């Protein structure tokens, strides 16, 4: 077991849990919660693709003695995930608002009991 494998397995497990929750749950807020879990798993997976064991954070200060290309981890996935987290919370806010308005309109938040969805 290396550190990289542990990180990969935990991100995959989180993604799996989130997908199961999205597919198997019936309550709208629980689907939104599972969506948040899955997006956290994807974020960890994306940062993992730039992780190199034994290197340092991509901040070039006095603690880095060698040339920077062999001393730091990949900054590009981290920059991607930084924006992805903030967008994820805005999207889950939108999901929650849609779930609340739907439950107010139909009287239930359970997807099995939403009968009058034909239009």
């Amino acid at each position, binding site marked *: 077991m290396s550190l990289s494998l542990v990180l990969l397995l935990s991100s995959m497990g989180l993604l799996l849990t989130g997908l199961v929750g999205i597919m198997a749950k019936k309550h709208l807020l629980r689907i939104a919660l599972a969506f948040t879990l899955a997006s*956290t798993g994807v974020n960890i997976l994306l940062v993992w693709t730039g992780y190199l064991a034994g290197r340092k954070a991509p901040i070039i200060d006095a603690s880095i003695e060698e040339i920077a290309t062999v001393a730091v981890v990949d900054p590009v996935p981290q920059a991607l*995930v930084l924006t992805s987290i903030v967008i994820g919370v805005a999207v889950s806010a939108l999901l929650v608002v849609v779930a609340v308005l739907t439950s107010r309109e139909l009287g239930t938040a359970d997807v099995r009991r939403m009968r009058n969805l034909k239009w």
Partner: protein
Amino acid sequence: MNPDFLLGIASVAGVSMIIAAVRAIFVRDLLSAIILVGFVSLTASVLFFLMDAPDVAITEASIGAGISTVIFLWGRSKVREE
């Protein structure tokens, strides 16, 4: 830092994160599920820090454990069910 030490922290954080996520999916009480998802975000920020991504760790800690939890708590208090 010591690699074995890092491996231990990562194992504890990852295992507790996955247990909390599974319980968040299958627990009956919605409030417990929301708090468990906040815990998952917190451990995920620990994992980000172990992956040498301190920027992402700060963002995940302040957003995942703060604002996201508040958003879901608001949704729980406003959802109407008969």
